[in-house]
């Protein structure tokens, strides 16, 4: 007999689980499906040689202290999912930095630290910076439509200094832009508030803490979660979506399907006429490599107290898929999870290094060449990173790395595109009635954004009776 649900959610990541919770909370029969054996999607975890690693989560952005006034994204998701603030066990960053040749800017979760550093190092731009902060204050956290306005052009108007524009953009682009060199203005505003005005925190225990909370809440509410259950096809007829067919041929029926698989990825699961509405131009081009070095002592014991360092070795920032090499060694991000406040420190001290990478090159290597390239890039990347932090190699006991090839394999995102398609579908709607998008390609950013996306799409499209 064919199983029938009210709603099927494709993908057990942050957005899919959050959507599942909302629907199960109001007594829907919900099925969350994931092709992978582990939940989490782009923010997941894995174990290797006894070490536990997080994927994705450098930081939970959008940090607000408990009881903060105003309806902020973090407080919204906690309310909507009925989770107490304490359950996230958040520890605040010690402080982060963006470093360009000869100048760096520091920030903490107290916005005045960044403002003061800009006033000190870019005195001519501080009035423009204050005006920017005032002007974006009333922007909503949930946007209905994207503008075509460029953040780069907008920022230059306010600040008048291309170096400061690049410095402020680097962290924002690395933590959320699906488009090369720039980001659309409303996304910029969301990123600016979530990274600089609100700031970074880490759940004690890493991404698992949040994922366990979501999964447990979902199950408590009676939701069904099936791992190792990839969706091969989305079934739809003239009136709209009817269900899905799993990789093993099983059919499951539902009147609503929410998909976090991605815009292109989802529509390609539909009939040919729908699949033809997307093209390779809709596939995101930005992917990354990350190296995780396990250290024999915490970075602070080696004199490094920064939580996250965003670096650029040249005057100007280039944020794009590398054209000439498998990675771009000119910029990157270094995250030390030990440099968040925590009652219990992470299991083992860690040094994480992230660089822009070319999906085309990493997927063209055969296995031997792939392993050799990982070794070569690891050495070259740490040479660069050491200039901005410290050289972790003498203190490293174990290294693992992942590439665009790994990302595509485990998340199903075409092109290994961490921030998905450049064409966001903010309404969540697709050409198929009853089939909606949530997650990265719906358009809200970061871990908090992903959960907000699942909540908002579930509320708008699946919760209210037709």
């Amino acid at each position, binding site marked *: 007999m064919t199983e029938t649900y009210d709603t099927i959610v494709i993908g057990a990541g942050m957005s899919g689980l959050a959507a599942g919770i909302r629907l199960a909370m109001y007594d829907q029969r919900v099925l969350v499906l994931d092709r992978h054996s582990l939940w989490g999607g782009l923010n997941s975890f894995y174990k290797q040689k006894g070490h536990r690693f997080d994927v994705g989560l450098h930081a939970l952005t959008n940090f607000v202290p408990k009881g903060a006034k105003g309806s902020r994204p973090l407080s*919204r998701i906690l309310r909507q999912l009925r989770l107490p603030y304490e359950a996230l066990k958040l520890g605040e960053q010690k402080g982060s930095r963006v470093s360009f040749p000869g100048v760096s800017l520091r920030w903490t979760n107290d916005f005045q630290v960044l403002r003061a550093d800009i006033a000190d190092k870019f005195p001519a731009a501080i009035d423009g910076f204050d005006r920017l902060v005032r002007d974006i204050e009333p922007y909503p956290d949930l946007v209905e439509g994207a503008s075509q306005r460029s953040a780069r052009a907008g920022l230059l108007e306010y600040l008048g200094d291309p170096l400061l524009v690049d410095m402020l953009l680097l962290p924002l682009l690395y933590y959320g832009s699906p488009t090369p060199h720039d980001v659309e203005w409303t996304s910029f505003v969301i990123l600016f508030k979530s990274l600089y005005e609100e700031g970074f925190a880490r759940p004690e225990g890493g991404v698992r803490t949040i994922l366990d909370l979501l999964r447990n809440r979902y199950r408590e509410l009676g939701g069904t979660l099936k791992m190792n259950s990839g969706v091969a096809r989305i079934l739809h007829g003239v009136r709209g979506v009817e269900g899905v067919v799993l990789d093993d041929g099983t059919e499951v029926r539902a009147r609503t399907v929410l998909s976090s698989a991605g815009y292109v990825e989802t529509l390609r699961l539909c009939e040919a006429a729908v699949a033809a509405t997307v093209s390779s131009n809709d596939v995101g081009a930005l992917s990354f490599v990350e190296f995780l070095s396990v250290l024999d002592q915490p970075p602070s014991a080696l004199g490094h107290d920064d939580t996250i360092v965003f670096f650029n070795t040249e005057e100007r920032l280039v944020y794009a898929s590398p054209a000439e090499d498998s990675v771009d060694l000119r910029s990157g991000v270094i995250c030390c999870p030990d440099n968040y406040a925590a009652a219990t420190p992470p299991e083992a001290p860690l040094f994480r290094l992230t660089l822009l990478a070319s999906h085309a090159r990493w997927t063209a290597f055969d296995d031997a060449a792939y392993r050799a390239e990982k070794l070569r890039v690891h050495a070259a990347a740490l040479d660069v990173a050491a200039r901005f932090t410290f050289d972790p190699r003498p203190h490293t006991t174990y290294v693992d790395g992942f590439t665009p090839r790994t990302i595509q394999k485990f998340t199903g995102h075409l092109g290994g595109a961490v921030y998905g398609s450049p064409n966001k579908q903010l309404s969540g709607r697709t050409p198929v009635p009853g089939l909606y998008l949530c997650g990265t390609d719906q358009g809200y950013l970061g871990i908090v954004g992903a959960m907000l996306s699942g909540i908002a799409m579930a509320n708008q499209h699946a919760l209210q009776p037709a």
Partner: protein
Amino acid sequence: MTKDEVKEAVKDIIATIAPDEDLEVLDHGKLLRDQIELDSMDFLDIVMELRKRYGVQVPEEDYKELASLNSCAEYLFPKMASLELKLLNA
């Protein structure tokens, strides 16, 4: 349920949705959203909880009737008069 009990029912729902807010100080005649942090997602949840706990349907065009505790009581009383009050946060 009396009109006062309808207000208690709504307050109990708000206590579930927004556990950090102090509901004892609410002025029944004033807009809820002017007194505590409630956004459109929270108002949706008031409607969803009314349906889940009491089987009461509030169509979208009537959401505005839930703006204050007094208006909630006026609007919901005819729908809830025959029902028992259920408090989850008492």
